[in-house]
Each structure stands twice: as C-alpha cells, then as structure tokens.
C-alpha cells in the first residue's frame, strides 16, 4: 500500500488567506477596493449586478450596497487602475486573531458574569443584568484589542497579484463596465 506524503507545517510555509477584490477608486497613493462577493453560485465578477435589480443595483439591502459598505483601502503598488480585479491576502492566523478578539472576548466576559451570578445564587433577572453588563464590558475590551491589532498592522491586507477574469454566471445579470480586467 502506497502512503501519500503530506507536507507538514514545518516543511511548507504558511499560506496567506487570499481574496479577490475590485479597484473602485484611486486617490493618490491609495486604492479603494471592494471585495468580490462569494456566493453559493461560486461568486462571479457580476456580483455588483446581482440581486435581481434591473435598475439601480445599489439600493438598500442589495448585494451591491453591502459590498459598498465593505470597501477598504490599500497602498497602491503603482499601476492599479479602476475596474481591475486583484488578489489580496492577509497573514495566516489574522482571521483567527480577529475572530477571537471580536467574539471570544465578549463571550468570555458574558459567561464569567453569568457564572458569578450563579455562584452568588442570584435570581434570573440579576443574572440577566450581570450578563448584559459583562457583554458590554467585553465589547469595550474587544474595541481596545482590535485597536491594538490594527496599530500593529496585523490585519492589513496586502496586494499579491492581478486576478484572472473570473467566471460570470449567466443568471447574474449583466456585467458592470470594467469589472473584469
């Protein structure tokens, strides 16, 4: 029986978490990017027109409006143009650190407050109030933690390469001009 060799973590460099984004604006040395929506139909370059709208696709609650809300800035490596699709990456483990900061910290304070209330044999209403207070405290702690992570630049995305033209699903409406490099 042939054993299939698996690269171990010591042998292989840790990969970046990659995602595709589209350049929507250039301001001097800064490029503004919109992440490409990944959906159950495997995501495509027509995401900005997705949602069944025939007119203004940036209406409230549409996919396009959600994408606009998730725009982010990147140092322009020089030759990026509006409409280009590029691949950006963040460090391995950044997602875990971000998730731990945003979710685990508030949960830990909330549950600790609940455990304290239970230990003190408090009633349900007191437990609810103490857990709500714990949640608020945890959100404050998460805010401080997130600021520290951002200051250290651990969450910053990096330009990796230009993306190939992505697949366009036939049911996703027309492609917006310049959305494919």
């Amino acid at each position, binding site marked *: 029986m042939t054993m*299939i060799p*698996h*690269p171990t973590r010591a042998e292989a460099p840790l990969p970046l*978490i990659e995602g595709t984004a589209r350049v929507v604006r250039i301001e001097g040395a800064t490029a503004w990017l919109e*992440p490409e929506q*990944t959906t*159950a139909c495997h995501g495509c370059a027509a995401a900005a027109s997705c949602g069944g709208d025939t007119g203004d696709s940036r209406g409230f609650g549409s996919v396009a409006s*959600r994408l606009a*809300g*998730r725009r*982010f800035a990147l140092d322009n490596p020089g030759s990026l143009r509006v409409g280009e699709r590029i691949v950006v990456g*963040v460090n*391995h*483990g*950044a*997602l*875990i650190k*971000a*998730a*731990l*900061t*945003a*979710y*685990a910290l*508030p*949960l830990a304070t*909330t*549950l600790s407050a*609940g*455990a304290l*209330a*239970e230990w003190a044999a408090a009633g*349900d209403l007191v*437990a*609810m109030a103490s*857990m709500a207070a714990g*949640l608020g405290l945890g*959100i404050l702690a*998460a*805010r401080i933690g*997130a*600021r520290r*992570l*951002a200051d250290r630049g651990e*969450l*910053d*995305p990096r330009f990796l390469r230009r993306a190939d033209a992505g697949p366009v699903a036939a049911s996703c409406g027309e492609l917006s001009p310049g959305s494919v490099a």
Partner: protein
Amino acid sequence: MKEFALMMIGAALVNNVILARFLGLCSFMGVTTRIDTAAGMGLATTFVMTVSAMIDWGVQRYLLEAWDLGYLRTITFILVIASTVQFTELVIRKISPTLFQMLGIYLPLIATNCAVLGVALLVVEGRMGFVASTMFAFASSVGFSLVMVIFAGLRERLALANVPQLFAGPPIAFILASLLAMAFMGFSGISTG
C-alpha cells in the same frame, strides 16, 4: 456545578448539533474547506447562538408565556436571531472597520443557519434557568465549532490525497462526515455510564 459540567459535555459532544441533531449542515459543508475560515465561522456562530439564546429565553419567559403567545414562538425567535446578527454586524463595524472587512462575510450566513434557531428552541423546551440555558447554548455552539474545525482539518488533508475521480469533491466529503458522525457516536457512552 457537576450538573452544569455534565449538561455542557452532553450538549457539545453527546448531542452534537451537527453530527447528532443534523442542524447547520449547509455551513458544515460550505465553509469547511479551510481551518481558518471554519474557525472564524465557528466563533461567529458561537457568539450569535449564545447571545440569541439569552434573548430568546427572556422573550419566551416574559413575553410569550406571560401573554399566552406561544404560537408566535418560531417567528419571534427568527426575528430575534436576525436582529442579533444585525446588532453583531453593527457592533463589529463600530469596534473596528478592519475586523468588519474580515469577519463581516460570515454574519449573513449565520442568520439563515438552522442550528441557531434549533438551539434556541431546545433551550426553551428544556425549561432551564437563565444561566443554565445560556451555558447549554454556549456548549452546543462550542460543539458546532469543534466539529467545523475538525472537519475542515480533515478536508485540508483530503485535498492533498489522491481520491478516485468518482468520489472526488462532495461524495468523499459526505463519506468523511459519516465517519466523523460514527466517531462522535462513541461519546454517547458518556450519558449512559
């Protein structure tokens, strides 16, 4: 305290949300191609599941039961879950726009995750106190996250394996899921021991 520990182990391992109750299977199959994304999704689901169970407990006790509106339970809980997801999204955007860029993608997926509603319904059916209900929801969501991460790790290894063409993709993933479910059946011995 011992009862709490047993109840939490039971919720996380013996009656695992995914492998014993078969809830949340779409995210189980869809977001488990990488450990990073599975862990991110798992933590987000843990937060939303716990917080929405807390709110649902209060709504059930002080609104639905008090006003004899039990028939509105499902729709009310769905509304609570959707509101919790929106609240979480707003808070994360306020805490850090960068975090929102990285984590925001998972939140809309959680609003349609049946495991969140399933756990909320189990919590009220269990007729436990507030802290016990919250701990039950938390343990259930930890079990959910644990299985997501284990399955993602297995699929990462599987991506490097030479799988026959006939089984490549979803078929081998389903076989893997069934083997994992059988492995988790071993924990059922805890409840009878």
